[in-house]
């Protein structure tokens, strides 16, 4: 969408997990890009590969998972094949990460101040005193009251919402240009979720930080993201501007997903649902992975796998948008 | 019976057994140890307790494969001309007897008290568990030593010699019951709140009957695993006590006794008198332990 050179570019990414019973393909042919300052929402059911994509970008795939094909480029420079030490210098400094559960993301034995300062002194040319001053600033910025006193508190002395604010400060404190936020609000109370998302959105805009926001909460996406990628069974099903995908999804799966969001303005007797379940990684069907559940399935869907095709307002991996007329 | 055998070979247990080479080797080693011990009087090449057959000329013969070894004494002979291999087989018999008896004793005691504590709760529960806690603070070998020492002091010397074997069994059993009691108490606490127990209580089944015929069968599974793992420990405890000279009486030497006796000749170079019983002890304990580990993992992957 954006005309600027992309900050992050993922090209034909394929992640495999070798297991005793054969190789599982967790991600296949995933491509997308994020421009500087842009927020890309990534949605899909559990197990669709959203978090896996995030882990691949920050170079922390769980072994034995590995990138089997494709490239990840940051500022046009490949980062998927870097050595551990080179990638470590990028993590935190260029790409920050926010995890799902703030209760388990912070080390319980260190004060939040120590965790902030060690992150900053690792990546920035500043001394401990300066780092501590900035740590207090960051805690204030993420809305921790009495930051100067709370800096020496341990994580267990904060509530879940406050801890996620600390995690956000930790992700941003070395001023990265991209944040990979993996379900940052899922583990929080509903009343806190909106606050944390608003904070994240505000800080990203102030600092000009781009963000890959992984979530299954369509409300968060609609409110926060510029563009959205819908994932299904380890592939991108559809990608496009958030307004288009939410209102006029072109891929039958995205359409089904959007239809299952309860509308706020009228009562409905029954929510729409997609029949069946997403296939397990070991049993992904031939052709389009969605074909057994797709209401618009036709013969080609069961034989060939569609790439992302131009569907007008968005790009969708669906044979409905093949240039030649659907045959069959 | 036929069907039961078929069911066993179809079971997960048998499957996981055939898939683990370490377990198969352990089972073979354990079987050799146990069979050799049980049938020692019939298959041992010599009778080490038959004084008439002992000849001091045969004393200190090294193992058969060395230069001075004699073919009839495969693992050599000790200071009195006893065949080391035969002594090991008879000794393993005593070790196994004490180990199994002590484990059975600890199991019976632990299961009964654990069942009582778990089912009755209240003051009995607190008291029993407090005792467990205190006892578990001390290593079991220390408890066994103390019990052995106290019994030794309480009994006249002549009486003690006759029942020394039972004293050792008692001492080791006492030192290990808390593990069983804790396991059973834990599962009993879970079972007592299940519907079938409540149903039995509602229709007026007596407490003792509920405990024995309803709860017990459902809590016994983990106990079998703990017992198997405990067997190796009990054999080691016996060996340690006997090595320290306070275990089984010298008239019925166990592997530990043999090691202690042989230890005196280590310096004069007759290493085989002590090393071979040691190897036998390790083989027996290690194979039993590995079998126990396997059984634990195969029966319940979650039980650590």
């Amino acid at each position, binding site marked *: 969408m954006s005309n600027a050179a992309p900050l992050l570019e993922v090209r034909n990414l394929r992640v495999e997990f070798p297991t005793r019973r054969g190789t599982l393909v967790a991600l296949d042919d995933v491509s997308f890009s994020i421009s500087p300052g842009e927020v890309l929402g990534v949605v899909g059911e559990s197990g669709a590969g959203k978090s896996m994509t995030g882990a691949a970008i*920050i170079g*922390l795939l769980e072994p034995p998972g590995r990138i089997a094909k494709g490239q990840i480029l940051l500022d046009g420079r490949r980062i998927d094949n870097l050595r*551990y030490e080179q990638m*470590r210098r990028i993590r*935190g*400094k260029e790409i*920050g*990460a926010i*995890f799902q*559960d703030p209760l*388990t*993301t*912070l*080390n*319980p*034995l*260190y004060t939040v101040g120590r965790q902030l300062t*060690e*992150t900053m002194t*690792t*990546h920035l040319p500043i001394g401990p005193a300066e780092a501590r001053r900035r740590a207090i600033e960051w805690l204030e910025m993420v809305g921790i009251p*009495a930051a100067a006193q*709370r800096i020496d*508190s*341990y994580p*267990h*002395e904060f*509530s879940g919402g406050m801890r996620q604010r600390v*995690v956000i400060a*930790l*992700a941003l404190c070395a001023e990265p240009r991209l944040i990979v936020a993996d379900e940052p609000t899922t583990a929080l109370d509903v009343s806190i979720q909106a606050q944390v998302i608003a904070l994240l959105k505000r800080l990203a805009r102030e600092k000009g930080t781009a963000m890959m926001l992984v979530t299954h909460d369509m409300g968060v996406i609609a409110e926060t993201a510029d563009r959205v990628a819908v994932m299904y069974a380890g592939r991108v099903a559809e990608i496009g501007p958030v307004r288009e995908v939410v209102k006029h999804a072109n891929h039958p799966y995205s359409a089904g997903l959007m239809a299952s969001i309860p509308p706020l303005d009228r009562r409905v007797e029954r929510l729409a649902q997609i029949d069946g379940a997403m296939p397990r990684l070991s049993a992904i069907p031939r052709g389009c992975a969605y074909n057994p559940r797709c209401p618009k399935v036709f013969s080609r869907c069961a034989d060939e796998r569609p790439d992302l095709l131009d569907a007008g307002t968005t790009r969708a991996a669906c044979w409905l948008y093949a240039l030649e007329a659907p045959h069959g | 019976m036929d069907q039961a055998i078929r069911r066993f070979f179809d079971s997960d247990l048998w499957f996981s057994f055939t898939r683990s080479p370490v377990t198969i080797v352990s089972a073979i080693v354990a079987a050799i140890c146990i069979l050799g011990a049980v049938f020692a009087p019939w298959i041992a090449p010599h009778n080490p307790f038959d004084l008439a057959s002992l000849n001091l000329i045969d004393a200190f013969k090294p193992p058969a494969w060395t230069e001075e070894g004699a073919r009839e004494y495969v693992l050599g002979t000790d200071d009195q001309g006893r065949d080391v291999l035969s002594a090991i087989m008879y000794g393993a018999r005593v070790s196994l007897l004490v180990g199994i008896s002590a484990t059975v004793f600890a199991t019976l005691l632990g299961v009964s008290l654990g069942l009582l504590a778990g089912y009755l709760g209240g003051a009995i529960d607190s008291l029993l568990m*407090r005792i467990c806690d*205190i006892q578990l*603070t*001390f*290593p079991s*070998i*220390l408890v066994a*030593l*103390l019990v052995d*020492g*106290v019994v*030794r*002091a*309480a009994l006249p010397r002549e009486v003690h010699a006759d029942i020394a074997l039972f004293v050792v069994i008692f001492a080791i059993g006492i030192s290990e019951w808390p593990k069983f009691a804790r396991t059973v108490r834990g599962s009993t606490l879970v079972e007592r709140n299940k519907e079938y127990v409540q149903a039995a209580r509602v229709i007026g089944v007596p407490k003792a009957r509920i405990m024995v015929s309803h709860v017990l069968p459902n809590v016994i599974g983990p106990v079998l695993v703990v017992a198997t793992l405990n067997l190796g420990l009990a054999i080691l405890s016996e060996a*340690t006590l006997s*090595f*320290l*000279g*306070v275990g089984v009486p010298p008239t019925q030497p166990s592997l530990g006794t043999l*090691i202690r006796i042989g*230890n005196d000749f*280590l*310096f004069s*170079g007759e*290493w085989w008198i002590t*090393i071979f019983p*040691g190897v036998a*002890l*390790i083989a027996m304990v290690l194979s039993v332990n590995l079998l126990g580990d396997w059984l634990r993992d195969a029966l319940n992957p979650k039980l650590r």
Partner: protein
Amino acid sequence: MFAFIVSRIFQALPVLLAVALISFAMFAYVGDPVAIMLGQDYTQAQRDALVAELGLDRPFWVQFATFIGNAAQGEFGLSYRLSRPVADLIAERAPATLELAFTAAALALIVGVPMGVYTGLYRNSWPSRFFLTFSLIGVSLPTFLIGILLILVFAVWLGWLPSFGRGDTVALGGWTTGFLTLTGLKALVLPAITLGLFQLTLIMRLVRAEMLEVLRTDYIKFARARGLPNRAVHFGHALKNTLVPVITIVGLQLGAIIAFAIVTETVFQWPGMGLLFIQSVGAADIPVMSAYLLLISLVFVTINLIVDLLYYAVDPRLRIGRGKGGH
């Protein structure tokens, strides 16, 4: 902090009292101390006199209180076997056992923890596999066999190290130490390895298991995601979290070291409390046994207290009520 210590001491008291009761019951009721003290021939009058002198005619609780009072002053009566004050016997032997136990514990910790960290971090490397196999042997071998094997190899075959005794010792006040002489140090090597090996392998396996567990946690992943160097992640974040459970087990194992010193001291004829104890068990020497039991439980309780304090130092979650805001 102070309240914490006091509460822990109060929790330990029932254990000590229970052990004291057992000790006393052994002392007072097992065997016939009067007959043992008087020897073969005595008259009823002699017997009555001794019973009165020992206070055996007084009520149970009075005797128990007297026993505790005496024990607190280190007064445990005479050894039946050696006819000397038990307190003197133990005081003579304690330095040998404590030096041995200390060396063994230090060995187990200094070697066991780094090996555990290494095998946890690089679990598929070949040194890790070697250490693990080695540890399986360490866990399965009974202590006395390890001692015998070490004696056979290093004392009998190679002749490098002595196989029994403490070597030359130096008296420092009431304490005799083997740390200051060459023979003393050489004599310490084999017993310390024998006693420490089991604990070493146990600590290694424990640290490894905890390390593997901790490395899987979110906060370690997050520390990596923040781009912290491996050294900080492994030795700062991971190892410190590993310490919490390790401290508990190590504390318990220190107690076990003192208990297993009985076996090691027997193998190496090490003149410590354990050897004294085992000789007393053989001879049914009740005063020594009950004194040893009390002393050992005191040591255990002290170790538990230290463990609790270390816990408190390592894990901030235990420091409740520090007056730092809270939730």
